[in-house]
């Protein structure tokens, strides 16, 4: 069953920034791109590297290790290093101004 988890205040994250959080033992990366919020598994599908601090340009997050780029909207990777998409989570804004995501 899906559970909703309240996270950091939306104002704590700026455009093109990444913030790692741990939920239910899962390492999840909150990202902001073009004013929108995204959440993905904080683990590159190429070599399991953490994506924290990866460069965000438009809606794409680049892995710091070898540069695989993922579309934050779909998790889909570009290029040849991996064909496995990143898991993405729905992010919404709670009444108190915090971000919240739904875990499966």
């Amino acid at each position, binding site marked *: 069953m899906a559970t909703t988890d309240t996270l950091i205040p939306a104002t704590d994250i700026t455009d093109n920034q990444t913030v790692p959080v741990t939920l239910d033992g899962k390492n999840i990366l909150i990202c902001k791109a073009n004013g929108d919020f995204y959440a993905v598994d904080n683990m590159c599908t*190429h070599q399991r590297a953490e994506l924290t601090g990866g460069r965000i340009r438009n809606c794409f997050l*680049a892995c710091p290790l070898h*540069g695989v780029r993922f579309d934050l909207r779909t998790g889909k990777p570009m290029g040849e290093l991996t064909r496995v998409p990143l898991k993405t989570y729905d992010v919404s804004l709670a009444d108190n101004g915090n971000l919240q995501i739904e875990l499966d």
Partner: protein
Amino acid sequence: MSELIKVKQQGEARCEGLSYQDLLNDETIEVPAYLREDSNPYMGDEDIDVARWIGRDFHEQEKKKLWPKVWQMTCREEDIPEVGDHHVYEIVDQSIIVTRTGENEFKAFINSCLHRGRILRDNDGHAEEFVCPFHGATWDIHGNFKGIPCKWDFSHLDEKDMSLPQVKTGTWGGFIFINFDEDCVPLDDYLSPLPEHFARFPLHDYYKGAHVERVVQCNWKVGAEAFMESFHTLETHSEILTFTGDANSQYDTFGDHVSRSVTPMGVPSPHMPEVTEAETMRDILELSGRMATDSAEGHEMPEGLTARTYVAETNREMFSEIIGEPLDQATKSELEDAILYMLFPNTQVWTGYHGNIVYRFLPNGDDHTSCIFETMILMRYPKGTKKPDPAEKNTLRPDQAFSEAPEIGGLGPVFDQDDSNMAAVQKGMIASRKGKVSLASYQESRIRHLHQTIDKYLNA
């Protein structure tokens, strides 16, 4: 008549009626010198062998003698805004990492690990250093070797130059160029007279508002040539004839690497003498895709004004509003005409005060029967505001229409019409019994110019 005089007169025929230079005489603002240039030396009328477009041998010659020698546009500076950002540029079977190494400094490295040869970067992105994904050999972004795991096993490399090999780079208009040839002419010489002609259009200050690409099933030259003459307007884009001076376009060549077409807009085609000024005005606003508005609603032709003047003044007002400064010095021509330059071999750029369109035709890897057609639109933004980020490239699938890319607006349907010819030309050239194509002396002179310059490289 002596042979000499006969030769001199060949290629001098022009469409009857108003020429582009005649239209310039009606300008109320001082006409800049670059528009007054009218330069089209006669280059001959011989048929051209289709092998140049369909032959594998010709492609192999281009691979050996053309692409390794020419300056070629790789990307925009704004595509790699921060130090460590890079673009992977691929041309035929070569791969280059174009990297920003300083505020105004770029380097271009051969994209191949000096250990086992794997490409170092698979795609565009950002790197603090280049780490090969295979075994981890590492270089800093300036190309200096930083090491490889298990260094004890590589003492034989100590004596070797392990710096990443580089190719030449240069910039103009916000574009980054590379050249594989150590002994090439300087970029400034190669570009001339482009920078002078674009003096009123500082492309480096504009931002890339749209970038769309798609594979097209034709040789890269067939693609490029679809945009080098306005002669095809009559049959391919007949809906725009009410406002397009197709047959009275001017064609110029400047040295080996630059050519230009100027197609007057806001005037009817010489093929359509009956069109009224009101029809011209209505259709150009509705269909051109390059005017300040894409609707004729609420526009009435004032008595005594030509459509050309009315549309230019509408554009002047609306373009000025967008950028927050007056365009008092802009001629009508620069406000509405199609003034399209080609930089040899495969880049085309428009001047003018609308968004500046850029085309590029890249061979699709090592396949000589398909190419990658790209369009960018360089846009102005209000003075004193932050430059917007460049658009992400939108790669259309081969089965998608250009009109499915909303960011290029009215250009999409026009490209779809061009697209209906490009693959069909490739196919028809293969089927041809004649085995040669014939070119119009004047209207298709830029195509001849392209091929004559290619020959200069292949025969060098």
